[in-house]
């Protein structure tokens, strides 16, 4: 495919490289990444720990700047944007789920979910957040603080927060890695259920083969390069 249109490919990467200067010299984390993700698609990126999965996710989401190559998000090339420009592009369109949940400890479950909605000035932030939480099965836990929730519940709140603004793309970084197998299974269940309902693009980074199996496509990150399993 040479032609890319914003609608069919919300996320693309071309010749993406990332290296950092360390005291021991240059460290190449990502060598040469080419990637196209179609609308509604769920892609899993698999790799061992330290293979550069989080780094790649950060680049795709525009949280970091590539050393070479480029990322296109919703048809806009990130290389031409500054930090604020990339943030504006993310606003309301990109959701995140993290390995370490990243809920704000000072806020209740409801408030955590409301945050991205409020940030984009959603007119009915609270109602939307309630709906999202009840879809995640947490209708009873709205006023609980993260410290009062189990790991699985916290990650479900994070999922509700990620899906509440109806993002076009969801980046998930090892969402089940911090959970035991059973709980992880349930969270994964919810993740794919929500993804299916909303038709959101899902880019899921994991080292868990089982989880990856549920995606439409699997890519392997080895020595800084992406390889398809086919």
């Amino acid at each position: 495919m040479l032609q890319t249109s914003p609608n069919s490919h919300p996320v693309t990467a071309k010749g993406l490289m990332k290296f950092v200067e360390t005291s021991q010299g240059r460290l190449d984390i990502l060598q040469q990444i080419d990637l196209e993700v179609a609308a509604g698609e769920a892609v899993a990126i698999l790799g061992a720990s330290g293979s550069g999965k989080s780094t790649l996710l950060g680049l795709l989401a525009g949280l970091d700047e590539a050393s070479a190559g480029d990322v296109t998000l919703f048809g806009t090339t990130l290389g031409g944007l500054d930090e604020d420009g990339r943030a504006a592009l993310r606003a309301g369109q990109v959701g995140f789920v993290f390995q370490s949940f990243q809920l704000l400890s000072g806020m209740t479950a409801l408030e955590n979910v409301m945050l991205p909605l409020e940030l984009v000035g959603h007119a009915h932030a609270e109602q939307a957040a309630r709906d999202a939480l009840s879809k995640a099965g947490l209708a009873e836990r709205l006023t609980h603080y993260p410290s009062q929730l189990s790991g699985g519940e916290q990650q479900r709140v994070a999922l509700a927060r990620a899906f509440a603004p109806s993002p076009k793309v969801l980046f998930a970084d090892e969402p089940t890695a911090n959970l035991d197998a059973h709980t992880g299974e349930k969270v994964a269940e919810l993740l794919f259920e929500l993804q299916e309902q909303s038709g959101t693009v899902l880019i899921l980074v994991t080292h868990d083969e089982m989880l990856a199996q549920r995606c439409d496509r699997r890519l392997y990150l080895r020595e800084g390069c992406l390889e398809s399993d086919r």
Partner: protein
Amino acid sequence: MNPFMLALKLLRRDWRAGELRLLATALVIAVASVTAVGFFTDRIERAMARQATEVLAADLRIESNRRLDEALSNEAEQRQMRQARTLTFPSVVLNNGNSQLVQVKSVSANYPLRGKLQVRDQVNGTTRYADDLPGSGEAWLEERLLPLLGLQIGDRFKLGQLEFTLSRIITYEPDRSANLFQLAPRVMINQQDVQQTGLLGPASRVRHNLLIAGTPAQISDYRAWLDAQQISGIQVQDIRAARPELRAALDQGGRFLRLAAATAILLCVVAVALSSRRFVERQADTSALLRCLGAKRNQVLQIFVIRLLGLGVIASLLGSLLGLAAQTLLVELVGHWFTQQIPPPSPWPLLSGVATGILVLLGFSLPMVTRLAEVPPLRVFRRHLGAPPIGYLLFISAGVAALATLLIWQIGDDQMAFKLIGGLLGGLLLLLLIARLLVTLLTPLRTRTAGSWRYGLASLSRNPITTSVQLSGFGLGMTVLLVLALVRVDLLSNWREALPADSPNQFLINIQPDQVDGVRNHLQQSGIPSVGLYPMMRGRLISIDGKAVSAGDYPNPRAQRLATRDFNLSQATSMQTDNKIVAGRWWSQADWGEPWFSVEEGIAKTLGIPMGALLTFEVAGQQVSGKVTNLRSVKWDSFNVNFFVVGTPGLMQDLPATYITSFYLPDEQRTVLHKLIHNYPSITALDVTALMKQVRGIMDRGAMAVESVFLFTLAAGLIVLYAGIQASHEQRVQETAILRTLGLSRQQLILSITLEFALLGGLAGVISAGLASGIGYSLSTGVFNLPWQFNPQLWLVAVFGGAIGIGAAGTLASWSLFNTPPILVLRRA
């Protein structure tokens, strides 16, 4: 997105979650102490200004040797200002063969316009305020007249052509003190009777006084009108003159209060800085997440800044209300110093409270909080990416600017403010240096120790920035607390001791040289402790360094008055015990013959008399010239006999002098005085018991007020220590979890944390004891003019108190860590 609304929402959430509690508490205390002192001193100052008008018994007083133009009174009438008239003139009262020169005063209705008369109904009765005036046919007399004239209450006596009944003893007259030393005893009668005495003939030396009172605006308008009339032969006085004894006591009290507020501010500022740092650490996640979710850097900045300012406004308002409540208590404590109602609080301290809160935030929180906008969004994947540290230069300059503004504004005494800021900066620098040094020293030590010692030391040297910050916080907090302890114990009690219970309460003046021995013997035989009798001559300063002195040379009204007035001069071989040489030296025996003067420093400054100047006085028609060889400071509130200018015996010996003495007379020995006056009728006795009671009241109550304000300082100190302990909490959570997973026992862990904090506390103790001694020294010698003593206990208390206190508090504050399963912590990370 509307950052304003979002910021307020977040603020509400923070508030509920307790996220900003520490910061808010520190702010509330700072603002409360500032406003409490602000409200209080504002009200007291206004009450004092009113009280000062008592000296005139009016706001404005017009005096003349001639009958006053009716236009003066009519104008005041037209402006609807209150007025009263008095006449004063000397006369002689004859009774039972005794004759006595008296000063008669006739008073009209409304007198006094400011202040109140105090009277006794019986010789042995109690003193009370008088709400009325002598009725027609009645006279009120000063107590010392009774033995002189052989009169009792209820007796009748003749004044001029009219008979009066002695109905009360007058003990206090507001407008009397102005020329305390020159008056014959008082006889007060009603204005209605004065014509019929027949004493107002053309030869009489009557002074006509018009007293006027009104609002400040009315007074200044009237004054302007009066000046425009250019009426000759009148003297106009307004309210500047206050009695120096009261002034001195109140000024000292005010200085203590402002110092207390300043220390509270200093501590709160440290607490605000520490808790802001922690706030930044804790909010790094929020910032990263907001950026991740699409907020721009500026929006993040706005969200945090608005949140902070919102907090500032709320905390400041709360603090102001607390301050308002506290000042009511303070006013309650001191209220009855004043004969009048203390004016209600004015709204401006409220404003200054909010301004203080915002200023503290701008100086000590905002520079750090702005760093939050710089947290890289990538932090969501890489936890160690935090806000870049704030530049020292920015932090220090913002802090110093805010602190300087605050202290100069609040203390109103540049000297003290600069000393505090200087001490603080020096201390901070020292603390940072020592912290750095410590970290370098600890690093090799780490490998040579084992077990808990090793981990305790390790965590101090591993986080050099946090350690320096903590050490600085503890050090400053403890320094201020130690200074506070010194001030409370040493300075405050020194202040009160300045006026011991047996301070002189009686003055005898006009003692003739041939009466000196008789008076001394009389007092000795009556068991009154031996007192000094000092020669006194009245003289006018005519030239300084050969240049004639004239009132026109001085812009300052006080200097003008001094330049034209007679001075009380004295001669002495040794210096009065409560004096202190500030320049030059006192004369030795060999110098007694030299023509030298010693001058009080205040008057030297007012009149522009430099050391070494040649002064010429005219005393009873003779001129005496001498060189100024030393300047003295005088404790006017000691009630000892003191003189502005003292000469060597060689210079003053041959001048005509009368003698003056002061002594303490217990109440039950008042008859001693009556007998003395009876034996030596020409001697004037002055009773300052009432005045002393007022001064002592100010000191006692003032000390209580100061101590109440110090409660704020104490609270602020505890907040600082708490903030210091919390400063390393975030790191510790992580570290202890790891150490425990690695198999460190709970006991070892507790010990290592205790050691870590005890080490910090002990070190902070050493530094703060040094700093506190320095600050205490400069405060007591430089600001309060009190003697200073080295205090070795201070060091022990500081070092051991610091180690034990902070060790225990730190361990307790970390207690939850020992009981939290490490897995919970690690999973959260």
